[in-house]
């Protein structure tokens, strides 16, 4: 009887320790998740800011100004443009 009790006690202790460890692991994992989520939000924000920047640099008016003023580009004369009919794909 005493032997069985001892075994049960050991088992109980093992279970308790296991629970504590797993709880700790879970919390650690969770805080990691939180950190990563915060990072993902930050990256989202950065993505938005980069998009803004891209839009600002890529403003049509600015591109046109640079193309014509500093690169000396101009739209081709319509007479020198050939329109190519695209073969209807998949038909």
């Amino acid at each position, binding site marked *: 009887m005493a032997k069985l009790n001892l075994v049960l006690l050991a088992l109980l202790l093992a279970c308790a320790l296991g629970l504590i460890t797993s709880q700790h692991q*879970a*919390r650690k994992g*969770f*805080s990691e998740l*939180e950190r990563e989520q915060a990072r993902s939000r930050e990256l*989202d*924000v950065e993505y*938005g*800011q980069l*998009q*803004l920047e*891209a*839009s*600002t640099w*890529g*403003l*049509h*008016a600015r591109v046109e100004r640079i193309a014509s003023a500093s690169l000396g580009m101009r*739209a081709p004369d*319509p*007479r020198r*443009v050939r*329109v190519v*009919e695209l073969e209807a794909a998949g038909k």
Partner: protein
Amino acid sequence: MSFASSPAIVRLPLWRSRFVLLVLLAAFAVLVGRSLYLQAVDTDFLQMKGESRYSRVIETPATRGRILDRNGEALAISTPVKSVWAIPEDVSAGPAQLARLAKLLGVDARELQTKLADAERDFVYLKRQIPPETADQVAALGIPGIYQNREYRRYYPGGEVMTHVIGFTGVEDSGQEGIELAYQKSLAGNAGSRRVIKDRLGRIVEDVGSVRSAQDGRDLILALDGKIQSLAYSALKAAVEQHRARAGAIVVLDARSGELLALANVPSYNPNNRGRLGGAQLRNRAMTDTFEPGSTLKPFTVAVALELGKVTPSSTVQTAPGRLTIANYTIHDAHPAGALTVAQIIQKSSNVGAAKLALSLPREEMWALFHEVGFGAQPDIGFPGEASGRLREWKQWRPIEQATMAYGHGISVSLVQLARAYSVFARDGELAPLSLVKLDGPVTGKRVIAPETAHAVREMLELAVQPGGTGPRARVMGYRVAGKTGTAHKQENGGYSAHKYLSSFVGLAPASDPRLVIAVMIDEPSAGQYYGGAVAAPVFSQVMQGALRRLGVAPDAPMRPIELPGEGEEAKEST
């Protein structure tokens, strides 16, 4: 001698010990009862108290959705910024520190002093919406009593070019104008909240459960094409400046899908910096203002006549002597002509011709077509403040009104309505439903006139931009263009002003298979020229050329340079 038998001991009565025992038992029972009550019956209270020691409800804000153009270019994006606030009583900082703070925040040092001197208030914003980098520098100063909170600010990279369509949001990130207001609900999303367990250091260690999950606002993809919009805005702006006009507006529609590819107004404003804003700049004229369209309405009068079989394009109408008097009111033609065919009435834009044609038509039929193409009713595209214009019940029309309406007076429309109405001619008689958001393909419209009628009117509109018509400056090299000029006296104090005009042009191209409808309106050109063919038509031509190239539309006409008419060669429009 035993202790019990000692004479010193007084024997107490038995009931006393029993009484003490009973009292102790009763006390124990009370304890048991109380603990039972707390643990089993009234559990919520203690649990709540316990939880409040470690669990917190935190707000999870929703990000406002982005607004993109049809090619995915960003037109409006929210990004976090910081607002700096203070509890004046708690602030303790030397003058040098305050000066540095004022410089960082970009506010006047004295103003900052007065704000902080007000000890009555326990919350005062020092500066709202500053960039995160500046906010970090402010935090680095380490002044006690100064705090920051996170807010979102909306940025509009398109600036003044797009602003009348997009609108803007207020400081609380809610839509105030334009699309931002119209789509406020789906853009804003819903803020959520969650219950979490925090540890001693304030780190979140466990999610107890989500109370409400945050829903970010949905991104909105507009029908707008950023490049065409930019082209339209710059062409319009140049024309308004060149002709010293009060204002101008332009609308570009995709004839196949009814999508709004561009909509611009001048004067405009920068939505990122709305310091001094006047009503004139804010107004989206193309949507919310109505005007008497003038001659651009004649094609609809002709369409009614053709539809009813009253005339054919080659029927003649006598317009001599260039005057028509109805009930004390005389309608004039700028250049009196003799007998004109119906096609020539459009080409030369004869008021008398159009009026005579209208007088031969039943009032209700004319009203029905005007109504069906959308005049007098809101275009219903979900834009705040869409104007409906004025189209009176046909029962109230007197003959003179019917006659003036034939050439666009006594009726008022918005530019968007006018552009949409012209889609009837572009789509072989179908009226396209307008759309602000991107669609997947062509849409089916509502049939308003027979395809033959639409074709016939389109041919007349093509004549109007040929030499001999009123709008040869609207032509585009390589494409067949169809369109109509309009020049109307502005209404003023209940009458017509003699020297204030409203010039317009509405047209479509390529005429063989129309892709685009463009409507241009210039308000009060005052640099000498005021005819729609001289003021508005060149803007149309410029934007149409760029837009057709942008969309890769194949030319349907030979590439011949366009010879502009010399002075006085153009057909003068009747106003």
